[in-house]
């Protein structure tokens, strides 16, 4: 009931355009950046040979059925094409940020400690043969 009242109150309010609002002054604060954001075109004019999905899947060690490849190929191409707009940004002399500015990574002493719940770790291993994790043989390609 109170939610209905809230809804009625909101829908009853006049739509206010942010520029015309009389209750707060839209003074603009922004810094002129060195970079200029040029026209937002989506196509990248770099060496864009369209991604070879099968090869990517092989690199990522993921098997895809032909149906899956057919389904995801257009979507992946569409997204990568969309990524292309970053090419238009002037990033001359801009440092890449690995992460948000934080204090330097703090490392702890490199001293091994035995984990107290080893049995639980062993229980999770799909193919275990006392002290060994079992995997099939590795075949050399080509």
């Amino acid at each position: 009931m109170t939610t209905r009242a809230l809804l009625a109150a909101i829908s009853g309010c006049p739509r206010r355009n942010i520029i015309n609002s009389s209750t707060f002054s839209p003074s603009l604060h922004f810094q002129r950046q060195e970079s200029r954001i040029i026209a937002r075109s989506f196509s990248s004019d770099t060496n864009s040979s369209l991604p070879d999905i099968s090869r990517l899947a092989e690199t990522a060690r993921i098997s895809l059925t032909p149906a899956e490849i057919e389904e995801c190929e257009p979507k992946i191409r569409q997204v990568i094409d969309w990524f292309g707009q970053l090419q238009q940004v002037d990033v001359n002399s801009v440092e890449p940020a690995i992460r948000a500015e934080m204090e330097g990574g703090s490392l702890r002493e490199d001293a091994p400690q035995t984990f107290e719940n080893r049995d639980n770790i062993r229980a999770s291993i799909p193919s275990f043969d006392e002290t060994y994790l079992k995997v099939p043989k590795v075949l050399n390609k080509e």
Partner: protein
Amino acid sequence: MPSTAASRILEHYRPPFDATAVKKIKEMGGIVVGKTNMDEFGMGSTTEASAFQVTANPWDLTRVPGGSSGGSAAAVAARQCMVSLGSDTGGSVRQPASFCGVVGLKPTYGRVSRFGLMAYASSLDVIGCFGSTVADAGMLLHAVSGYDRFDSTSSKQDVPEFDTQFLSMDSFESKPLKGVRVGLIRETLEEGVDSGVRSATQEAASHLEALGCVVTEVSLPSFSLGLPAYYVIASSESSSNLSRYDGVRYGNQVMADELNKLYECSRGQGFGGEVKMRILMGTYALSAGYYDAYYKRAQQVRTLIRKDFKAALDHNDILISPAAPSAAYKIGEKKDDPLAMYAGDIMTVNVNLAGLPAIVLPCGLVEGGPSGLPVGLQMIGAAFDEEKLLKVGHIFEQTLKGSGFVPPTLPNVA
């Protein structure tokens, strides 16, 4: 307790240790009621990408709760628990909070240890808190914050007493937020944002003014670049982080006669469609010849975004914007259109790129569903300034007319 990241590849996995955040909660006597649904490995904005089930929004069961931490938001909205944890890499706590009418709190990167958080994008991931009030979310944040030697990105900054500053309304002065400078981000009210969301946000701005704030418009020129930069960085880092799911040491294994085939089949069958897509996109963006054009460039754009935020926060105490361009949409509506779904993250991703804290709290309703659909206001603060966000959020919430945001699916819950 089973921990699957909503993925078949971890279907029966039971971790041998608790995440630091969970350990802290247990040490303080918190009761872990259970685990919630999410988009697989955090990749999604609707919880539809879970390998196990779709979660419904308690405000309208035909609509999505948001994502990726949609289950945690819905559980609090439906009062199945008091508070919940989620993870926020590009808005995955804040957007579902908006869709479900609850409070979602994203701390500063480094405030909460990521030890035990299954990594999606290591430079962006944080653990966030849901509650039905700002005070509850703040108390949970206090419980899980703090330096942890097991997370090298964990901050040594002091953790203020977030949980003791929630004064009751009777003690508010007439203008309890007098002098607080609020910057409304101009780019978040442009085309593409639902008119109902725009109205609700402008009314929230007026409410803040009535409380004494000085609200002005700010511009973040690099704003629109955040979305592609985010998706390049997130998919690149995830392609690396998810390489550990190989079926050898844990998780579902698909046996094969050759090792590469074991990897390929375990992963091919264990991962869902969205996860596979993002891994492939990330693999592409990091591959030889493309690294500079995509990943490095996105990192440079990240620097520009950080600078814009810093400039705006030098002149403002907090920045505000909608949490999402719309209220919750129908289940299935955006499932087949990745760019349409990604577009919904526009309000939230820049905050992750800059590593800043932000809170989302319900500020109004728009039409839709049996009783309207909630809309959340996002407040963004300077690094490690969660205290200010909680103070402003609490006062805003307590003075907002109406007795709270309770979904119609619940019987009389005050």
